């Protein structure tokens, strides 16, 4: 069972004193509350991952396969020859320390092995030992060490205390992408069956049923029908979306979390209302029913397999292009990998908004447009009737999700949309937003419930910035464009800044959207009475 989470004032006492022993001589201590449960055999077996067995990180014996050192070193040699970035990142760090205090996990935990430079050094030291001459000859003198059972445990513990958010990379004078080192670390441990169940479960679900939560087609439909009832209650308008419809112009893909977890569900209601108001010729899919990709947190190959269904479904349905919902890592995958993994999608057209005629040149290759780009273009062209005063009871700030900000440069569109639908908008301090945004603290599949100590420590820097604008401006709403954020920031706010609520951006849009034939709005999408409408 998980340990009890300390109270916020206790967790906020962060000890930055490093251990007295050198880092190589300080053995890893696997602490409860800081790691996720081991992957279940059935979930690894479902996707033919190696060494499927039940295991627990808390136990001494991790039930590794025989010859595991060889497996890791062979894989390392293979990736070093395949990925030039990985080779470069193993070689070029000068340990200047610019990244050291930029990591939310280091700031929140004080553990030196969460300094990005040291986290990477855990792997570099092994690289030196087996792949460089100085390391082979001089060993520890050259910063090299052998790959032992304890080293492997240390890798696992700290590569699952990194959310691949890439904030450290922004400050690295060499541009080393520490996320790629963590990705390799996870890829190697994956070869030994050292996955967590919080990642392996969704991967297995997604492979078998199309989405992380394992929602069956009729479950997806029933969930959306539930939203439609609420939309009708709020607006008086009956919406009839379509599913798996061949010949639709646009396929819409969003994270399954939007369909089954508050407050993502209100974001999903927002999509439904916007598309209805536009009369958009689009369809949902119960097959390509997941925008997110937890495979991305296991191996490159798995991420590619899970991603393939998006283009496959676009082709089957004969759509022209694709709109994607509000999600973070989903967009790192779509923007940077999808077209070369599973494309070219030359059966699709370059996305062109049927409402404004705008051609999305930036999506020429992927054929997939982020919904805030689509909506920002609508607003810019005056195609939406908006009443931002309906959001006047909210004082809103915006959390850039790591992957959309640093992974695709989507900085202005969400802000433009939010400012168009809300009158009260306040930015958090500039070193905590945009390219320098702080992670929610629970990305890359770390958003389980057994590792709350880790999550709240990692979430502390972001929460602290929210607290600042709450105290200064009375901010009470934290908007974002990521399904993981909607789930994790909710927990982090309840813990650190309890009077701040979390919402997706299209929830705010739909609340302000004046729809044709709607009744007077007296409630928001959460069915809460709007201020001033109490008597209605």
């Amino acid at each position, binding site marked *: *069972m*998980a340990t009890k989470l300390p109270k916020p004032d206790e967790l906020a006492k962060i000890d930055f004193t490093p251990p007295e022993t050198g880092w190589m001589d300080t053995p890893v201590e696997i602490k409860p509350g800081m790691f996720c*449960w081991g992957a*279940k055999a059935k979930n690894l077996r479902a996707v033919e991952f190696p060494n499927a067995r*039940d295991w*627990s990180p808390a136990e001494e014996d991790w039930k590794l396969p025989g010859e595991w050192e060889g497996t890791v070193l062979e894989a390392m040699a293979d990736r070093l020859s395949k990925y030039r970035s990985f080779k470069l990142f193993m070689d070029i760090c000068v340990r200047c320390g610019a990244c050291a205090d930029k990591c939310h996990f280091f700031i929140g935990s004080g553990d030196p092995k969460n300094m990005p430079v040291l986290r990477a050094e855990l792997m570099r030291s092994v690289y030196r030992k087996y792949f460089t001459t100085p390391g082979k000859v001089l060993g520890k003198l050259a910063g090299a060490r052998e790959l032992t059972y304890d080293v492997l445990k240390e890798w696992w513990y700290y590569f699952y205390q990194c959310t691949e958010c890439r904030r450290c990379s922004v400050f690295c004078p060499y541009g080393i992408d520490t996320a790629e080192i963590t990705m390799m670390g996870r890829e190697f441990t994956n070869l030994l069956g050292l996955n967590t169940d*919080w990642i392996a*479960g*969704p991967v297995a679900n997604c492979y078998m049923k199309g989405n*992380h*939560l*394992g*929602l*069956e087609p*009729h*479950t997806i439909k*029933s*969930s959306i029908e*539930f939203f439609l009832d609420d939309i009708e209650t709020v607006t008086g308008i009956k919406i009839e979306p379509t599913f798996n419809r061949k010949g639709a112009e646009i396929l819409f893909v969003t*994270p*399954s*979390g939007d369909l*089954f*977890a*508050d407050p*993502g*569900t209100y974001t999903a209601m927002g999509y439904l209302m916007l598309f209805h108001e536009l009369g958009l010729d689009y369809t949902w899919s119960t097959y390509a029913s997941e925008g*997110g990709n*937890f495979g991305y947190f296991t191996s490159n190959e798995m991420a590619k397999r899970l991603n393939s269904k998006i283009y496959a479904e676009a082709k089957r349905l004969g759509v022209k292009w694709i709109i994607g919902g509000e999600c973070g890592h989903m967009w790192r995958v779509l923007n940077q990998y999808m077209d070369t993994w599973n494309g070219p999608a030359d059966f699709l057209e370059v996305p062109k908004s049927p409402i404004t005629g705008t051609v999305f040149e930036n999506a020429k290759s992927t054929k997939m447009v982020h919904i805030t780009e689509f909506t920002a273009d609508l607003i810019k062209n005056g195609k939406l009737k908006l009443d931002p005063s309906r959001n006047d009871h909210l004082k809103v700030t915006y959390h850039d999700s790591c992957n959309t900000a640093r992974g695709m440069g989507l900085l202005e569109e969400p802000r433009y949309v939010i400012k168009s639908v809300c009158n009260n908008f306040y930015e958090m301090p500039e070193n905590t937003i945009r390219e320098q945004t702080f992670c929610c603290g629970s990305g890359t*599949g770390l*958003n389980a*419930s*057994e590792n709350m100590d880790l999550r709240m420590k990692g979430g502390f820097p972001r929460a602290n910035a929210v607290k600042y604008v709450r105290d200064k401006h009375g901010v009470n709403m934290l908007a974002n464009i990521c*399904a*993981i954020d*909607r*789930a994790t920031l909710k927990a982090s706010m309840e813990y650190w800044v309890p009077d701040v609520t979390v919402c997706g951006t299209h929830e705010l849009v739909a609340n302000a959207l004046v729809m044709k034939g709607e009744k007077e709005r007296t409630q928001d999408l959460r069915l809460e009475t709007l201020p001033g409408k109490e008597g209605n």
Partner: protein
Amino acid sequence: MPTMEFKGKQIEVDDDGYIINLDDWEKDMADHLAGMDGITLTPAHWEVIDFLRNYYKQYQIAPMIKILVKEIGKVMGPEKGNTKYLYELYPGGPAKQACKYAGLPKPTGCV
């Protein structure tokens, strides 16, 4: 694999104490699990458990809290169709705690 002793048998459970094989569940087990948390199940508790089990049978997943709230409101009356009422019944959370007693897997929320 952790186990839980029930009626002299060892039942497989996960790291959080949710039973692994849903077929192992029987009504007495709900009382047993609730008893371990110091809760005595009343007909009001059973309304929730029965709804969860039926929903799971149909959709292979535990429902969202708001679906549960709406349904309980329909069956038990509007004054009980709210989260507060459900938390009074299940202080550990209507999703997590009630699912455990109902013999369903631990709800995952958003992943």
